[in-house]
């Protein structure tokens, strides 16, 4: 339960709940906030005061004018009209004649009949504008009456005067409250989004082995749990990689040992053959012995290629690139191979160019050409021709052998070429082999930078 409260679900539900509950609560609260101050604050500075105040004032003024001559009444009304400029006023004397109409827009009769007076009173009772009728002096003396009319806006509480404004304020207030909720849920989601993006970023961030780095657990909620699972997964990946590396190492050691353990008996076989060769006299037998001797070399190369391939594909083949002058390197490789090629009457043609520098490991280049020339000697010796040509961007090895039957190398040549291919790729060189029954052209080109 405690955990549940920390979850994102709980937080989200809380926000929704607040929003839903807050709408009915917010309405009265908003109303209270907007209207109450207007109602509670009786502004005494207002000239009219409330409707009651104004009515009282009018009756009081009427009372004071008891027994006053009509001119005085007119003067008083003039003064009052100045005090209350928005109010209309007039008075009716004891004969029912309308007098001193001020700021009063309705049509009024010259003389008030009893029935008109009754109708007027009926029509103007409790209406807007507020109409106040007061008998001058004591009603029993029949000195006439005075009437005033004023918009209720002027005499109501201030709220009534600001009626339109209040509704705007109310809606703006409600809008702000809504905006508040939206902002809150947006902030909530944004935080959520931010953490998800952080996690995504962490997943893309990889260490040397291509496994993401573990993340710091940020919270106890669902994302926090996701981070824990993520870390667990990384841990498993790392374990898997360790296991794989260990297996890879064991395999490598096994092949290295196998390579060694196979070579020793091969040497012993050669030693034994050597002993027999001295005793055997028949030509045919000698030839067979020579063939077995060649097979020993062949096997030895295969074993070596197997070991090299294993090391290369496991990235354990030492790689020490440096800037190498290609012509010079190829000359030295050609010099090294010349006696072998010469022995098989293979004509060697070396074409060099002006200085060309490549960033490669010379040992790797040697190894690549060892394999290529090995194949040439083994499969293309009958062409009696080997041409090595260096130019700015590529090294070419051409023979006039029977070809490799398409792009794929023949059996045995395969692993040797795979090593050449792997090494070329690793040194950012491109290997291109073109072969037909007229010969084979191997090109090792520098990739455009």
């Amino acid at each position, binding site marked *: 339960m405690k955990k549940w409260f920390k979850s994102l679900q709980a937080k989200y539900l809380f926000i929704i709940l607040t929003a839903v509950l807050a709408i009915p609560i917010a309405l009265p609260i908003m109303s209270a906030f907007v209207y109450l101050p207007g109602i509670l604050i009786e502004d005494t500075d207002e000239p009219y005061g409330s409707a009651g105040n104004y009515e009282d004032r009018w009756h009081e003024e009427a009372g004071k004018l008891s027994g006053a001559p009509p001119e005085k009444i007119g003067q008083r009304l003039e003064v009052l009209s100045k005090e209350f400029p928005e109010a209309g006023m007039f008075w009716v004397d004891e004969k029912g004649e309308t007098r001193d109409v001020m700021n009063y827009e309705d049509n009024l009769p010259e003389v008030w009949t009893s029935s008109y007076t009754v109708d007027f009173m009926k029509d103007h009772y409790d209406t807007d504008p507020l109409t106040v009728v007061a008998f001058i002096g004591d009603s029993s003396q029949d000195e006439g009456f005075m009437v005033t009319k004023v918009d209720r806006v002027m005499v109501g509480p201030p709220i009534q005067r600001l009626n339109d404004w209040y509704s705007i304020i109310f809606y703006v207030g409600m809008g702000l409250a809504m905006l508040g909720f939206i902002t809150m849920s947006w902030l909530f989601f944004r935080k959520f989004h931010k953490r998800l993006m952080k996690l995504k970023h962490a997943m893309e961030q990889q260490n040397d082995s291509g496994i993401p780095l573990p993340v710091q657990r940020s919270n106890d909620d669902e994302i926090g749990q996701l981070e824990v699972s993520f870390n667990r997964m990384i841990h498993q990946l790392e374990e898997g990689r360790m296991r794989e590396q260990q297996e890879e190492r064991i395999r490598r050691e096994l092949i290295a040992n196998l390579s060694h353990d196979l070579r020793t008996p091969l040497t012993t076989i050669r030693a034994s053959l050597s002993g027999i060769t001295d005793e055997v006299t028949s030509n045919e037998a000698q030839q067979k012995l020579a063939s077995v001797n060649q097979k020993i070399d062949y096997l030895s190369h295969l074993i070596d290629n197997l*070991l090299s391939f294993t090391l290369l594909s496991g990235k354990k*083949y030492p790689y020490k690139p440096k800037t190498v002058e290609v012509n010079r390197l190829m000359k030295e490789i050609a010099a090294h191979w010349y006696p072998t090629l010469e022995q098989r009457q293979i004509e060697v043609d070396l074409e060099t160019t002006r200085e060309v520098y490549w960033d490669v490991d010379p040992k790797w280049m040697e190894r690549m050409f060892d394999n290529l020339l090995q194949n040439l000697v083994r499969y293309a010796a009958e062409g009696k021709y080997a041409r090595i040509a260096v130019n700015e961007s590529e090294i070419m090895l051409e023979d006039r052998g029977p070809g490799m039957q398409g792009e794929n190398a023949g059996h045995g040549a395969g692993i040797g070429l795979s090593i050449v291919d792997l090494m070329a790729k690793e040194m950012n060189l491109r290997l291109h082999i073109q072969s037909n029954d007229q010969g084979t052209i191997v090109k090792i080109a520098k990739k455009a930078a």
Partner: protein
Amino acid sequence: MQILYIEDDVEIGEWVVRKLQEHSLDVHWLQSGSRFTGDANPYDVAILDVMLPGLDGFSIGRRLKRNYPHLPVIMLSARTAIDDKLGGLEFADDYITKPFHPEELLKRIEVQLRKFERTNEQTLSIGHLNVHLDQQVIQDETTSAEIILTGKQFHIFKFFLKHLNQILTKEQIYEGVWGEPYRDGDKSLMVHIRHLREKLEQDPSNPKVIETIRGIGYRVRG
């Protein structure tokens, strides 16, 4: 010529000893490193297997090279990984992998003996020339006349003799003789070789002593 040979495999050991003796080389064969006293003074070359019971060939080789820097050490091993080769060549002068051809082993021993000037050949016969190494005299066999070389010419010729039967690029010769890096387009070596040929060859336009290997370099064959 005394050769120190350490190899634990009996069949291989016996075979190598027989082959070397056939070429009139004296071999002292030990089946383990621990039997080696550490005194290498009597030997001209050491041939060491790597995987040996007790002390391994690398340790023996390193110790030998430290105590006897002028003793050529050849590793003869079934370990072919480039790491092993590079590790071996850090101290050893050559690294031969099994299964090897005995002829190759002999050639490489010869190369090392020549490189360390431990050969007891007093006279080399190259084509029509007889070269008396001890007196540094070159003689034309057909006329018995002595051929006098200038200092540089003699240096170059000696460099060829040190690398007898090997193909040398002009860069290698230049750097071996002059002791400084070869600059592309430098013609002085070609000039020296032309003069050298004029003195050594019977027909300088068709050289037999200093062969031209087209496009690659030069070779003097013994």
